[in-house]
């Protein structure tokens, strides 16, 4: 019982952090409560589906269903965050014309989103190397667990916010750096170009996992994608659904609408874990 409570707490903490970022990022946007609420509902649904069909879907890719789904959803989330970040960089000026004190907020959120994307990218490549689709490029480049335990609360928070890993592998470090570099480099380029570059990059690197990372370019279209390709824990599906439906909506509607909706993933991860149990 305590173990289950701990899992729920841990996953909730993670999601709460992300929701906080989303709430900050969507400040001043009308109807954001409704959007975030919808994201939660969609996430719960997605998690439930994933939990219910976990075993069945795992077998559909010759035992690689979990890795491929997780990697695809994480990859999608990274793309959406990257898109958001780049888009914000080029449109923030219009959005905050009259609200001068929002400028700092946007700057902070932008950095948070950048690191969040990099952190998710490290998780994405881990799943691909777990399925032997990517090399690890060396396990345990360094070990900082004596300084900051990844299982402790502070370690957990940093893990979510910036992708902190006490004993990172080479491929994780590479993914982290490349993600930040790509986003940073492309912030002045068009969002579509960047998105294409990242998708193709991930596609190329992940080989067979490729097909799953495509799609979901329209408003909310990732929700059915996550559901239909679902296999393992609900959390990631929820995260992706939330980001994917949120960010493109923002872009499409010039940022007047839709924050990203995230509370979902917390609830989801917990529900996902419990239902499987």
């Amino acid at each position, binding site marked *: 019982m305590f*173990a289950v409570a701990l899992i729920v707490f841990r996953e909730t903490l993670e999601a709460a952090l992300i929701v906080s970022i989303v709430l900050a990022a969507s400040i001043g946007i009308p109807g954001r409560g409704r959007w975030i609420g919808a994201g939660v509902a969609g996430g719960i649904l997605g998690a439930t589906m994933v939990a219910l069909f976990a075993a069945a879907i795992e077998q559909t890719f010759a035992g690689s269903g979990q890795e491929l789904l997780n990697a695809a959803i994480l990859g999608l989330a990274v793309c959406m965050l990257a898109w958001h970040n780049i888009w914000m960089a080029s449109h923030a000026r219009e959005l905050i014309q009259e609200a001068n004190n929002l400028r700092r907020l946007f700057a902070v959120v932008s950095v948070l989103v950048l690191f969040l994307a990099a952190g998710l990218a490290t998780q994405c490549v881990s799943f691909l190397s777990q399925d032997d*689709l*990517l090399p690890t490029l060396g*396990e345990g480049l360094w070990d900082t667990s004596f300084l900051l335990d990844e*299982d402790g609360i502070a370690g957990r928070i940093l893990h979510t916010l910036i992708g902190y890993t006490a004993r990172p592998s080479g491929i994780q470090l590479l993914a982290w750096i490349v993600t930040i570099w790509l986003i940073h480099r492309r912030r002045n380029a068009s969002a579509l170009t960047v998105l294409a570059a990242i998708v193709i990059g991930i596609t190329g690197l992940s080989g067979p996992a490729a097909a799953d990372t495509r799609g979901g370019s329209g408003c909310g279209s990732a929700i059915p994608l996550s559901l239909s390709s679902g296999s393992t824990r609900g959390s990631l599906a929820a995260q992706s659904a939330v980001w994917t439906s949120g960010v493109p909506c923002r872009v499409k509607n010039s940022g007047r609408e839709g924050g990203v909706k995230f509370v979902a993933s917390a609830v989801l991860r917990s529900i996902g874990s419990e239902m499987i149990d």
Partner: protein
Amino acid sequence: MRLRVIRNNGTNPMRLRPSLLLLVLLGATQASAARAEDPPEIAVTFLGDRFEPTEISVPTAVKFALRVENKSTVSMEWESRALHREKIVPAGASAKISVGPLAAGSYEFFDDFHPKIRGHLVAH
């Protein structure tokens, strides 16, 4: 004129293409190289209250596959923070997890649904 504007903005598609192609090729060769060799399989069994064996001897410097067999009546998630691996294994099922190449040392793993049940991969 138009071309110059595009170039100044750094969005010239011609500049982007070679790097994309490179990424795709890199990915393809790596994926196929990874598939070509068949890494050795090492087994561990989950019995509901413990892993068997609790301490698993594994080789250093080569990639191998860990075969996790769940012989209990509940789902478990094989997880290792040190190795960045996590995989749910339903009751009665088995799953394969690619690991390594590892440097000599001890790598802890546990069942994420029952985190007190732990074991170690010992690479030497």
